[in-house]
């Protein structure tokens, strides 16, 4: 009979952690050696009992992954998403803000008919593009006051961060109020001219 195997090898054999050649040799030996067979059964049964007890500790959620660290390779994509979000917010601001400014001018209110202010508003809603110069001039003339912010939604906003964004040529800039959720809740158009 060949030499008997130590407990460590028998334990590793149970877990299949030995090289294939040694696994086969131990398997052959266990069939022939009663003492090693008994030791192997004892080790194996104990390992199963301990494993069952250790499984009691599985009450916590399994560790699925590392808390995501911002990978450098994704920075460009994240900035692209942020830029697109800001561009969309600016677009909403450009479409919505002219309506407000066109209603405000007093010359219209001086018209003889009291219903006159309603009349010029209608073409602005249907044709927003011609109204843009009006909005730009209005923003340059008036000081940038807190009241100039235009709400983009109806959600209550207690605190926020003001972020200034601008077009590539720098002609038009806007201030966005970002809430704790990172979304833009208000906007105002400013100009550096």
């Amino acid at each position, binding site marked *: 009979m060949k030499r008997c195997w130590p407990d460590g090898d028998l*334990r590793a054999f149970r877990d299949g952690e030995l090289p294939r050649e040694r696994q086969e040799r131990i398997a052959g030996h266990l069939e022939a050696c009663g003492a090693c067979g008994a030791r192997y059964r004892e080790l194996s049964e104990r390992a199963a009992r*301990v494993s069952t007890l250790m499984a009691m500790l599985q009450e916590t959620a399994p560790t699925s992954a590392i808390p995501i660290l911002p990978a450098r390779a994704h920075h460009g994509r994240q900035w692209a998403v942020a830029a697109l979000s800001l561009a969309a917010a600016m677009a909403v601001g450009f479409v919505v803000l002219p309506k407000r400014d066109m209603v405000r001018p007093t010359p219209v209110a001086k018209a003889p008919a009291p219903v006159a202010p309603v009349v010029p508003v209608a073409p602005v809603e249907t044709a927003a593009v011609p109204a843009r110069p009006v909005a730009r001039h209005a923003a340059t003339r008036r000081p940038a006051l807190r009241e100039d912010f235009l709400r983009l939604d109806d959600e209550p906003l207690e605190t926020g961060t003001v972020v200034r964004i601008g077009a590539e040529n720098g002609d038009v800039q806007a201030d966005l109020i970002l809430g704790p959720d990172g979304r833009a809740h208000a906007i105002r158009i400013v100009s550096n001219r």
Partner: protein
Amino acid sequence: MDIVIGVVQPAEEIALDQVPWFDALFHAHYPRVVGMLGRLMGDRGQAEEIAADVFCKLARQRAERDGDGLTAWLYRVAINAGLDAVRSNTGRKWREEAAGSGSLRTAAPGALDQLLQQERCARVQDVLAAMKPRDAQLLLLRATGCAYRELAQALGIQAGSVGTLLARAEAEFERRYRSRYGDDV
């Protein structure tokens, strides 16, 4: 409403851009360290706290250690911190009180089973806390599914020694468990 995501004291800041080795170690071992500590303590939040603390210490160990020595150091410090937390026993007392009051008061279906499960869990934690840190670490990591090669790296030993040490750790665990709680293994 202000949401504080995290606070880092200036003295604790680590210039991670300057330590790429830390990035590699963190990604390779953080899940396993948290898994090991989470099993040991039964509290994932506390496990993550300890793991973060250990990794902060790790960032300052680079000058003195390297390679596998650093990995073994990481796991050794983590298991020692986890065992200290278990030995302080506050977590277990809290769980026992919660189990004794909350579960039974609500009398939800399976409350008794849950109570028994928590008691068995507390027993295993007590036995692990009484063992040598290396043996407890070996059993915990093996329970998380680590292969022998990974166990050897974490313990800083030869892969050929893992079977022997594992068999000894299991025998020691069972002996301590039986001496405390009888033959109810």
